[in-house]
């Protein structure tokens, strides 16, 4: 009943607003008439009586307002009213509105993008059922790799996982009958799909029951995207036979669309049983000593088992294995992390965390900026506010309308920012940074991103809308209307100045960190890699899959080198098995021992250098300088004594001194004694951020492999060179698949993380710079316009330009200096985080320090230029006449 009455009252008010308003007006007027009637009866004349009645009634507008409130449903109505009013007010100062909206759009957009990345990389697990309990494990010293027998033991002997599946990469030529295409897929254990608990979109998956030893399960499951792209959604594809590196495989199923494989940064084209990896990739299945067969193992943790317990459990199994197979084990330990991210978990987390922090700072800076603007506006509008108060508006109501204004602006900014960030996120997730590699960035925005953006918008609106709160609450209408707009000058430190100082500090932090990052990237581009990748071409071939075996391999490689050397303009040609340093993180380590050591167990390992097998003249082609001794020749073949070339770090660690190295011997894991015949400079082998690492180079004729990269050094035009190389090799063998790519473009993969970090930090730094410009500009312009009269008087009394400037902008500059100094210190502290991602990122760099100081000063100059001009161009006579 009461609810009904309330509802009717609210509904009537909202639906029949004019009538209700009219009704109320009539009723109040009727009251005054009745009262006037009474007064008239007591002998007053009509006009006087009506006047008296109105006075007795009191504040007409106020009571009407209160009565309106009493009718209920006020919240919505006031909101609509405030919104309408705010829009009108904002339309009157479009410049202010646009600056405010853009500032917020930038800040909210940045936060939405960063949250999108956070969401895609860390919060959102793989698109499979019960992904929360799915954990990946790695076991071994080399990131991510272990052997298949190892995996089997881990799977069968651990007590933490319900079941353990594993996968490896498979780069293959996939031939559907007419022409082989390169494809990247996963070689997976039979239980892969069962552990993931997913069901096929089409056909069936393979299972553990399909595995019967090496090369027993020639089945292929396609990813939905690949099926769509290469087979045009053809459902009859099930049962068809295709060739994987010339071996027949039967397509048995298609994975569901939302599943793209268990590696976050790559989307897989197909899935094949790992037991068939040997015939496709030549990776032997049952060798315990390799580290090439499994990239990552994963499974659902049993209920109640924590990741820490799982790590301990796996380590225990590992220790056991190490005792059983001492020869095959290096230094190993387990890591448990998010599936598909295990190897990068730490770095990615640190990076995203740093980004989140910086984006948060941007938002804070934007809020401080807008808070300052709003406070200035409230001060400018103090007359209007005072009038409204005097006319009977409540402070509560005025605050509400100011807050509505702030939230409206932040919603508009949020909408613009969200639109831009969603656009950017979609572009990012569709982006393939490297045409050759199936790398992707899984950051498709979802509902969470929208929700977060909305929340950020509302909260920041309320945050900066609150800034003028105190100002409004303390407003004394009589004082303001009496004294005009000349406010008190020279208060110690206003809230506004504090905000601006804080904001400048935040911006200086951003500028500092982005400079540190940019400088770091610049350095790593110019760092001494131990190679000269400029003007070199990598020619990658796999002779094993092309049908070469035994001595044919080395003969063919020799012929390839010989013919490539005959191309005009080619200066040097050399060959390295697999890939050269820094490409596809392919460098692998080997155990080496002192020559006296006879028991070749892990505890006796003398060093774990990176191992490369290279042809004669490789060092000349790669641009690595030979410091002492000799290079390899074609006579260092199977019949010659085993020799090696080592780098300085190796020589230092193994023999204690560089000079002792040449001529000395050491032992490989298989017991081979090798003699050091040459010494080369140190370089980078796996990543740009690594410390100096030992490396050894063995002659490829003594360690032949069909999988190799030929390095062709030539300063001639790349396109012509590629054509010439392909032409020459076709003459040798028509059917040999050849990949040609410049070394530099392949290095981009290695540089990718620091490049991404630098770009994102650069963008954030730029945003910070822009925010500080608008912030300082706003403050300077405001203080000049507030003090126009004072400045005019000063000038009339003969103040010099310098003094005028000091009076007008001294405070702004002081704030800038203090803020920048504080920000610089904080930025240097914050940059320690950066050092883990960006190579050579050190804040203790005079160039960075000078750069930050220079940047902040020029920002200050830029921002105060217009207000300073205005202050200087004052004409005291007109100014003083005006007021």
């Amino acid at each position, binding site marked *: *009943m009461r609810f009904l009455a*309330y509802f009717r009252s609210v509904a009537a008010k909202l639906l029949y607003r004019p009538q209700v308003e009219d009704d109320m007006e009539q009723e109040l007027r*009727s*009251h005054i008439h*009745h*009262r006037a009637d009474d007064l008239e009866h007591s002998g007053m004349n009509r006009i006087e009586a009506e006047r008296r009645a109105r006075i007795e009634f009191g*504040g007409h507008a106020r009571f009407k307002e*209160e*009565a309106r409130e009493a*009718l209920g449903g006020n919240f919505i109505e006031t909101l609509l009213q405030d919104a309408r009013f705010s829009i009108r007010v904002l339309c009157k100062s479009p410049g202010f509105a646009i600056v405010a909206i853009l500032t917020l759009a930038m800040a909210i957009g940045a936060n939405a993008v960063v949250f999108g990345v956070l969401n895609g990389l860390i919060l959102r697990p793989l698109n499979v059922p019960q992904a929360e309990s799915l954990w990946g494990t790695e076991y071994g010293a080399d990131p991510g790799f272990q052997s298949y027998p190892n995996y089997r033991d881990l799977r069968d002997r651990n007590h933490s996982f319900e079941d353990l599946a594993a996968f490896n990469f498979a780069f293959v030529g996939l031939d559907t009958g007419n022409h082989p295409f390169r494809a990247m897929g996963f070689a997976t254990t039979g239980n892969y799909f069962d552990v993931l608990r997913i069901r096929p979109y089409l056909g069936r998956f393979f299972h553990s029951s399909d595995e019967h030893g090496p090369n027993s399960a020639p089945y292929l499951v396609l990813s939905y995207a690949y099926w769509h792209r290469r087979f045009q959604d053809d459902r009859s594809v099930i049962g068809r036979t295709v060739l994987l590196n010339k071996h027949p495989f039967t397509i048995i199923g298609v994975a569901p669309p939302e599943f793209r494989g268990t590696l976050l940064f790559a989307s897989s084209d197909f899935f094949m049983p790992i037991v068939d990896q040997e015939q496709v990739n030549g990776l032997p299945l049952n060798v315990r000593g390799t580290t090439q067969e499994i990239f990552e193992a994963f499974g659902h943790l049993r209920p109640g088992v924590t990741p820490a317990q799982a790590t301990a459990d796996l380590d225990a199994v590992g220790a056991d294995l190490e005792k059983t197979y001492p020869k095959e084990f290096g230094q190993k330990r387990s890591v448990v992390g998010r599936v598909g991210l295990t190897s990068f978990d730490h770095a990615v987390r640190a990076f995203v965390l740093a980004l989140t922090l910086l984006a948060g700072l941007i938002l804070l800076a934007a809020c401080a900026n807008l808070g300052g603007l709003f406070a200035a506006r409230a001060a400018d509008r103090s007359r209007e506010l005072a009038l409204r108060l005097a006319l009977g508006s409540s402070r509560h109501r005025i605050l509400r309308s100011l807050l509505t204004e702030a939230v409206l602006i932040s919603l508009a900014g949020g909408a613009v920012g969200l639109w831009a960030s969603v656009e950017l996120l979609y572009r990012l997730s569709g982006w393939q940074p490297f045409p050759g590699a199936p790398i992707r960035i899984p950051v498709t925005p979802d509902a969470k991103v929208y929700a977060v953006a909305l929340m950020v918008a509302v909260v920041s609106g309320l945050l900066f809308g609150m800034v003028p709160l105190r100002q409004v609450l303390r407003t004394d209408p009589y004082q303001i209307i009496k004294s005009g707009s000349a406010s008190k000058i020279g208060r110690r430190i206003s809230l506004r100045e504090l905000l601006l100082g804080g904001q400048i500090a935040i911006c200086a932090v951003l500028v500092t960190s982005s400079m540190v990052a940019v400088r770091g990237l610049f350095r790593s581009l110019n760092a001494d890699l131990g190679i000269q990748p400029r003007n070199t071409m990598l020619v990658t071939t796999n002779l094993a899959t092309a049908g070469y075996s035994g001595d044919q391999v080395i003969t063919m490689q020799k012929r390839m080198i010989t013919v490539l050397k005959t191309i005009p303009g080619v200066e040097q040609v050399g060959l390295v098995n697999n890939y050269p340093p820094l490409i596809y993180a392919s460098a692998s380590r080997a155990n080496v021992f002192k020559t006296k050591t006879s028991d070749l167990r892990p505890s006796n390992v003398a060093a774990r250098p990176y191992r490369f097998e290279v042809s004669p003249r490789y060092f000349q082609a790669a641009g690595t300088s030979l410091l002492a001794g000799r290079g390899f020749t074609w006579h260092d073949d199977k019949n010659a004594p085993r020799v090696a070339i080592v780098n300085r770090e190796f020589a230092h660690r193994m023999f204690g001194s560089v000079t002792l190295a040449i001529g000395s011997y050491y032992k490989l894991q298989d017991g081979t004694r090798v003699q050091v015949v040459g010494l080369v400079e140190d370089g980078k082998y796996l990543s740009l951020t690594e410390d100096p690492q030992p490396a050894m180079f063995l002659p490829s004729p003594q360690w032949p492999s069909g999988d190799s990269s030929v390095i062709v050094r030539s300063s001639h035009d790349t396109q012509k060179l590629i054509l010439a190389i392909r032409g020459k090799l076709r003459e040798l063998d028509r059917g040999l698949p050849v990949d040609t790519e410049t070394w530099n473009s392949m290095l981009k993969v290695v540089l990718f993380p620091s490049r991404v970090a630098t770009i994102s930090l650069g963008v954030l730094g730029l945003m910070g710079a822009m925010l500080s410009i608008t912030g300082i500009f706003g403050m300077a312009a405001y203080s000049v316009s507030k003090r126009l009269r004072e400045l005019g008087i000063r000038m009339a009394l003969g103040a010099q330009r310098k003094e005028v400037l000091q009076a007008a902008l001294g405070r702004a500059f002081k704030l800038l200096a203090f803020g920048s100094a504080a920000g610089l210190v904080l930025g240097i502290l914050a940059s320690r985080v950066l050092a883990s991602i960006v190579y050579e990122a050190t804040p203790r760099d005079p160039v960075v320090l000078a750069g930050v100081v220079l940047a902040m000063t020029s920002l200050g100059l830029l921002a105060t230029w217009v207000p300073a001009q205005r202050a200087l161009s004052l004409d005291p006579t007109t100014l003083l006449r005006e007021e």
Partner: protein
Amino acid sequence: MAGEAQILPGTLDLLILKAVSLGPLHGYGVLLRIGQISGQTLLIEQGALYPALFRLVRQGLLRATWGTSENNRRAKFYELTASGRKRLREETDGWNRLAAAMGSVLAAQPEKS
């Protein structure tokens, strides 16, 4: 002005309900009635009456209809609804209990010892 009493906060609603319970009244009439039955001791700021009236209508305690007043003017007349009558009874009881309690507290004499 001697003889006038300030209205305690929260008692305006009760006064209005009581005034209207004696017969339908328009706003100005409510004022007159309160003045009359209190012997001109309780004075209400005229404008302040209306927010209270609207609130009571919203709460479903009063019903309002337009009619013609004794002065032959259009006016809005308020009367009690059923729940208004109930509320008046409750509030009256409550007030009486409070007044009695206050009275006995204030009448207490220091004990002679």
